[in-house]
């Protein structure tokens, strides 16, 4: 330490982590259904989230069929169309992305990566999943009731939410609200677990600054979610009161069918403030774990330490904090006080600074790296492209004067799908290709994976890039049909819509190929061994693959280094796992570093 200019006395050894008591499963039910093992819960989360996500993908194809080939399908009428749009958005944002990143990846990797046996409160963890599962069931019931699910858009703005003419204003709204409330309660139980486990159950030597960035991302995202979901909960409860008890939290006085509705004086703007106070952090609840995961994957597959680790951590924290003061940039045209526009445009542009730091650091990690274009790496690089692309259009929309004419056009749809749909999904795929060998002991098929990647990457660009032009041409979003729009919108818009639809169908089939790959490789994939990528973090150093109950063997690992010791000069191998003490590092022979 002396040569680094530090006083050894300022350091205290990390505390020995006491062994935790694990609940042991004794039957099929407690092993696979009401399991308290975080890894099983993670897989339950993932299967539920991906299933419901595939359903939402199907909904998006139905939306696209109508847009690409209007009125060719009798199944899709204006009512259904709005319901598909609403459910597609809500499922993808909350029930797929949030649940998969935090419930799925969070549960699997937090204990493994920090060297813990399990979550802090395994029973509550199990309860968290079952709340989530019930919330999905409640959501799905809406498709089977008279009137169907709500069609008010995923933003659920009142008064439209409860006004005659909007689909599903009775049971549909109620089920959506109940489902969200149950989801939030379930998430709070899970979120408490993730935070406590990271704070209290890190193994010996695993200081905060030796945690993989995946854990930092999940940690910050969980903090955001715990503080932001209450806004949605309050909004949901008030909508329920407006709906059931006839209060007027959000519902203004209106005339419907010549009669005054029972509500009076409520403020739709209040709902928008509450909704986006949750809604904007929600973007980062999805993005921060993705940032973390992609950092780890880039470092591993470029055989280089992550560039600017501390800066990456602080950028995560800064983005998390700033994400709470930008919400009203979703509301420039809502009728709020126009002076707010300036304020929120400024904070929105400020948040681009830490985000740009992260992007530069990813690119600099690749610089001079020993890049291996494995499947996870392809998806991670794909993420950088789509994220930068979507992020730059965010700078357009963050400015009030640019946003006003572009509001509610396809430009917005193109922007948020690029930055919040394609980019995090790229990371989900990168993560699944990267960690599937640890979870199953087998590799995913390379050829199918490459087809999946290129179809998805090129396909999604074909879908969303033209949407920006549609938006600039003034095509509004959420419309079932445009009717006669000449001379305002050119006829070529229809051709472009048809192209987008065809691309969307192709991309959807590529996702089915991925699902097939996941199922097929479970039995027929090449055996991977414990550490196929020569990675350093603790989850790759477990005694068995897949890791057993309790994750590690008799003793928890002790951590001596950060997780980015790749291509260390003078070392024999190009990676040094976190649990290798300095004296055990093998020195390089004369012929240099070996892979």
């Amino acid at each position: 330490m002396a040569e680094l200019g530090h006083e050894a006395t300022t350091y205290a050894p990390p505390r020995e982590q006491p062994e935790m008591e694990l609940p042991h499963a004794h039957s099929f039910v407690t092993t696979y259904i009401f399991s308290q093992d975080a890894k099983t819960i993670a897989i339950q989360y993932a299967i539920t989230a991906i299933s419901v996500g595939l359903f939402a993908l199907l909904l998006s194809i139905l939306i696209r069929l109508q847009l690409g080939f209007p009125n060719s399908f009798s199944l899709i009428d204006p009512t259904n169309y709005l319901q598909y749009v609403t459910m597609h958005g809500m499922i993808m944002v909350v029930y797929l992305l949030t649940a998969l990143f935090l419930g799925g990846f969070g549960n699997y990797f937090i204990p493994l990566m920090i060297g813990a046996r399990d979550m802090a409160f395994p029973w509550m963890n199990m309860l968290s999943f079952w709340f989530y599962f019930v919330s999905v069931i409640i959501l799905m019931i809406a498709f089977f009731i008279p009137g169907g699910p709500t069609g008010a858009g995923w933003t659920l703005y009142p008064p439209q939410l409860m006004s005659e003419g909007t689909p599903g204003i009775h049971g549909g709204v109620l089920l959506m609200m109940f489902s969200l409330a149950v989801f939030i309660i379930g998430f709070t139980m899970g979120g408490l677990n993730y935070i406590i486990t990271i704070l209290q159950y890190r193994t010996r030597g695993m200081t905060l600054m030796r945690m993989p960035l995946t854990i930092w991302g999940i940690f910050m995202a969980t903090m955001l979610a715990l503080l932001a979901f209450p806004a949605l909960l309050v909004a949901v409860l008030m909508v329920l009161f407006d709906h059931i008890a006839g209060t007027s939290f959000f519902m203004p006085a209106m005339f419907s069918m010549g009669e005054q509705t029972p509500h009076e004086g409520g403020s739709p703007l209040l709902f928008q403030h509450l909704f986006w106070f949750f809604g904007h952090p929600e973007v980062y609840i999805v993005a921060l774990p993705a940032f973390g995961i992609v950092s780890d994957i880039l470092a591993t597959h470029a055989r280089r330490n992550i560039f600017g680790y501390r800066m990456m951590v602080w950028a995560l924290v800064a983005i998390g904090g700033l994400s709470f003061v930008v919400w009203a940039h979703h509301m420039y045209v809502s009728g709020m006080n126009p002076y707010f526009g300036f304020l929120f445009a400024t904070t929105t542009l400020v948040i681009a600074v830490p985000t740009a730091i992260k992007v530069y650091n990813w690119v600099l990690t690749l610089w001079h790296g020993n890049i291996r274009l494995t499947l996870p790496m392809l998806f991670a690089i794909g993420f950088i492209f789509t994220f930068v692309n979507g992020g730059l259009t965010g700078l357009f929309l963050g400015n009030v004067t640019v946003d006003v004419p572009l509001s509610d056009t396809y430009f917005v749809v193109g922007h948020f799908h690029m930055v919040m749909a394609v980019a995090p999904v790229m990371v989900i795929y990168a993560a699944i290709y990267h960690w599937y060998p640890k979870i199953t002991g087998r590799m995913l098929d390379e050829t199918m994976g490459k087809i999946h990647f290129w179809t998805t990457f090129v396909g999604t660009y074909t879908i969303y890039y033209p949407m920006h032009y549609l938006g600039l041409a003034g095509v509004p979003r959420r419309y079932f049909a445009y009717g006669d729009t000449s001379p305002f919108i050119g006829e070529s818009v229809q051709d472009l819509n048809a192209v987008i639809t065809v691309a969307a169908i192709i991309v959807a089939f590529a996702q089915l190929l991925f699902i097939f790959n996941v199922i097929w490789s479970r039995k027929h994939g090449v055996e991977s061994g414990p550490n196929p990528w020569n990675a350093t973090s603790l989850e790759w150093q477990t005694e068995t693959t897949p890791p057993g109950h309790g994750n590690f063997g008799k003793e928890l690992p002790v951590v001596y280094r950060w997780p980015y010791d790749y291509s260390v000069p003078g070392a024999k191998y190009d990676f040094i796992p976190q649990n290798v003490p300095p004296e055990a590092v093998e020195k390089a022979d004369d012929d240099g570093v070996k892979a």
Partner: protein
Amino acid sequence: MIITLVFLAALLAFFLGWILSRTVQVEPWVADGGLLSDDLPDILTTPRVALGIFLAVASSVFALSISAYHMRIEWGSDWLAAPSPALLWVNTGVLVLASLALQWSWNAARRKDGDSLRRWLYIGGALTVAFIFGQLLVWRQLYVGGYFMSANPANAFFYFMTGVHGVHLLGGLVAWFRCTRRVWQGAGPEAVGASVELCTIYWHYLLVIWFILFSLLLTT
């Protein structure tokens, strides 16, 4: 949203300070150099930290409700302040006593005085149940007086806020019941001391929240 933002700013300032103090002087790339130990102090046991974070989440719910309350007053023109029945003062007193009783129970736990612990724990729970019945009685009085939820946003907020507070207290009673059952089965101060402590902190927290909500309802 000012109130919510102030609450969040305070929380984030605390969090940022903690993160920075644990990360600034650290050189993570140094192997086995020893890093600043960032374990939480021993006094912050896992259940205590868990309760602390849950209180932050609950505070977020209350801060947002209070923000919504102010915004609805400001943006609507139909606000007619709800009455504050005298019974609310009695209920407030009961809740204060409940909090005190649990505090004494906790004190007894620290003195290893099992009898006193048990007595005050029972009394605290009983007083809390009395508070909740009192609140229901207030609802009943308002309802009979024609102050329905749908009649005015002030009434709606009154039911909403007292309801959210009551639900949190009911959740606390579940924890209290689990703790009490163990005491009933003969668990001593060593075994249940930590649980009594968590209950007490939670009760004090909800008492403070009730003071804030009550003064809000009285002044607007």
